[in-house]
């Protein structure tokens, strides 16, 4: 008798389980892949979001760092996961919009294999020069850079990285020839700008700010179209001499293509709510990150327009990489 009862229960449960799962997402722990090593902006944002989701859902959101190959390894792992919405990933400008033009053999298509959920935050970039470079604005920098090829050099965190693309866009828009000296990561490159080994660099505003305040670097402008709340007195590169210049890296949460619509809506709502909570806003402000939010459709539109934008930049810079 008991066996029969148990069997009946199993059958009933199996029948209603999918429906239950749909209603109560998440019924089990959710995986949030951070496609970079711990410690960077992507990781910090991922953990902030993960912590808030855990609090809201009462289900653990597990952060998994899968670094490598400019964030494409982790993103690929995410899009190859089951299409149930239990695997999320913190994507970004680099692996969602730059990678398609950079890598010929990219193993995923950000437009086809990805369901965008919500754009989380923008991480403002700024242009900084070593104080020995006699330029205070982009307008003053351009003639110095055009004196001759290689008169100035810029550092980046590697060919194809956001910092190199920001500089390449600057070069092609201002028609200057600044020599590229790539480094392995932002920190060593910034160190060499501070010490004057190289002249300038585009990097996270949050990293530049303390050095600018102490006079070891001179901030020239932020790279987005809006000034940053973290350094209100700093003009944009566009307004200080290079109209139309716009680079604004962001990080947002995505899942696999074909994930249930209800799940996408639920995750979007949960993160949108988190982005309004005072402690999250305070943490973001301390780092100079700007909360974005919005609907999945808006995020999808951003990804689409940025892909074509960076295709132009990558082409103008003549960068071609393979994977």
């Amino acid at each position: 008798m008991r066996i029969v009862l148990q069997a009946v229960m199993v059958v009933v449960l199996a029948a209603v389980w999918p429906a239950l799962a749909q209603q109560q997402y998440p019924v089990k722990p959710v995986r949030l892949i951070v496609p970079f090593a711990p410690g960077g902006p992507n990781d910090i944002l991922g953990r902030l979001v993960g912590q808030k989701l855990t609090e809201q859902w009462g289900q653990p959101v597990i952060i998994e760092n899968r670094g490598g190959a400019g964030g494409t390894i982790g993103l690929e792992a995410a899009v190859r996961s089951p299409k149930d919405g239990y695997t999320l990933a913190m994507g970004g400008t680099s692996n969602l919009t730059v990678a398609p033009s950079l890598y010929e053999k990219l193993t995923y298509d950000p437009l086809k294999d990805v369901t965008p959920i919500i754009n989380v935050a923008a991480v403002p970039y700024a242009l900084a020069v070593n104080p020995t470079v006699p330029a205070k604005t982009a307008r003053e920098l351009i003639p110095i850079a055009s004196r001759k090829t290689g008169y100035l050099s810029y550092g980046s965190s590697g060919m194809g990285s956001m910092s190199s693309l920001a500089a390449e866009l600057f070069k092609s828009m201002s028609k200057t020839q600044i020599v590229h000296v790539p480094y392995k990561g932002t920190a060593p490159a910034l160190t060499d700008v501070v010490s004057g080994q190289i002249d300038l660099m585009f990097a996270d505003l949050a990293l530049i700010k303390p050095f600018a305040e102490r006079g070891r670097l001179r901030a020239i402008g932020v790279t987005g179209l809006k000034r940053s709340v973290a350094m209100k007195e700093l003009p944009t590169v566009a307004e200080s001499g290079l109209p139309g210049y716009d680079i604004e890296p962001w990080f947002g949460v995505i899942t696999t293509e074909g994930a249930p619509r209800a799940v996408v809506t639920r995750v979007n709502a949960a993160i949108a709510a988190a982005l309004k909570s005072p402690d999250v806003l305070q943490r973001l402000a301390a780092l100079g990150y700007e909360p974005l939010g919005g609907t999945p459709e808006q995020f999808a539109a951003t990804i689409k327009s940025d892909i074509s934008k960076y295709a132009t930049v990558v082409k103008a810079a003549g960068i071609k990489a393979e994977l």
Partner: protein
Amino acid sequence: MIETFNSLMMGFSVAFQPQVLMYAFFGCIIGTLVGMMPGLGPLAGISLLLPATFGLNPIIAIVLLSGVYYGAMYGGSTTSILMRIPGEAASVMTCVDGYAMTQQGRAGPALAIAAIGSFVAGTLGVIGLMLLAPTLADFALRFGPPEYTALLLMGLFVLAYMSGGSMLKTLAMAVFGLLLGMIGIDVMSGYTRFSFGITELGDGVGIVPVAVGLFGISEILMTAGQADPPKVQQPSLRQLIPTAGDLRHSAAPILRGSLLGFMIGIIPGSAHIISSFVSYGMERRLSKNPERFGHGAIEGVAGPESANNAAATGAFVPMLALGIPTGPVTAVMLAAIMVHGILPGPMLIQQQPDLFWGFVASMYVGNVVLLVLNLPMVGLFVNLLRIPYAYLYPCILAFCIVGCYSVSNNTMDVWIMLAMGVVGYVLRKFGFDLAPVALGLVLGPMLELSLRQALAMSGGEYSIFLHRPIAVTMLVIAAVMLLFAIKPLIFKGKDWRSKVGLDEPADS
């Protein structure tokens, strides 16, 4: 001076708060355990633990992480000495003579000397950090790509003194290491080289899987290939304690290693890895009987272990004085405080005095904790060797695989490690020495990048190396080292190598 003293006292008042002290202690224990895990070194240790510190206050976070960092270095030397498994690139040299000592039943003294050397180096390093940080940090900033290239060239010429086997075999192994270092995305152009379409190879071949494979896995295979199982050791208490002779032989290498390590450590970048290789080469060159190296010379443990720890402390100089993360480890540390909204920068010491001095004081505390923790445990660790190999080695193999995988959740690392184990086995059967492979793999990518950066800066002019005093000085030293190394090849004279026995398998 008085001011420094007062600040330090303030630092100790922070470090001796029961909660901070407790976390420093925890950090050291966790670090030691992590370090003992094959394949997991200091960097992997603190990266894995970083997320756990996000909920703590910044001082505790950084104290905990630095405890883990130091602890992992101690722990790494333990597995290197007992099982020939390096937890990180810096303990590769410790494997050579440390493990040879273990095979002679002298694991106790090797472990004790490693702990004492690390303690002395760590303490001297903190003193240097405290007194000289601001001065040295500005000096460190004068190291750009050209200086770096010159420094790494010096490191490359250390090869001549690294191995006792034939020069040809040493160079062949170094070239093998350099070639392995070619794999991956070229930072300058963005092109991927020799990856055969495998995305995971894009970031290159990590030193840890290669070192664990070449040294650790190959040792397991060698043992399995023997007709009779090796005898299980029964270390007695008397054998655990270093003799007066051991201490006498180690004193000078420890001091030299500390100084060398600290100087290399303050240079921004990952050059600190080469400190243990350079120290080993230097000790061998200075030794009156270099033929003992590779066969259980205690100097070969004392020097590199001290250099390694002093370099670790030296690396904090630019980080704390200027807020610049100079290597992967310091970058993770700075991330730990950035998460709390403290932006690192040149104002860090002034703006966060209790953070800086609390950190300095906790490094003193951490060094003492580790010595107290590790010296008595030497006996315990050595007893691991009592486990019959039939049980010990399968466990080690499993730990190697788990450790290697967990560094970046990447199965490719495990395959690399296993493949390198087979390669290492074959090479050792043919009497090749493996340490040069590790040095080549460490140096290759760094040397290539800095050389090309320097040339990009100068527009292709090699004269950039002659316009910079530091670079010129180091290139001259490197040239002298090279001349000394090739002298016997030209004059066929007697040199230290002839005493070693040229074609004897260096490592069996």
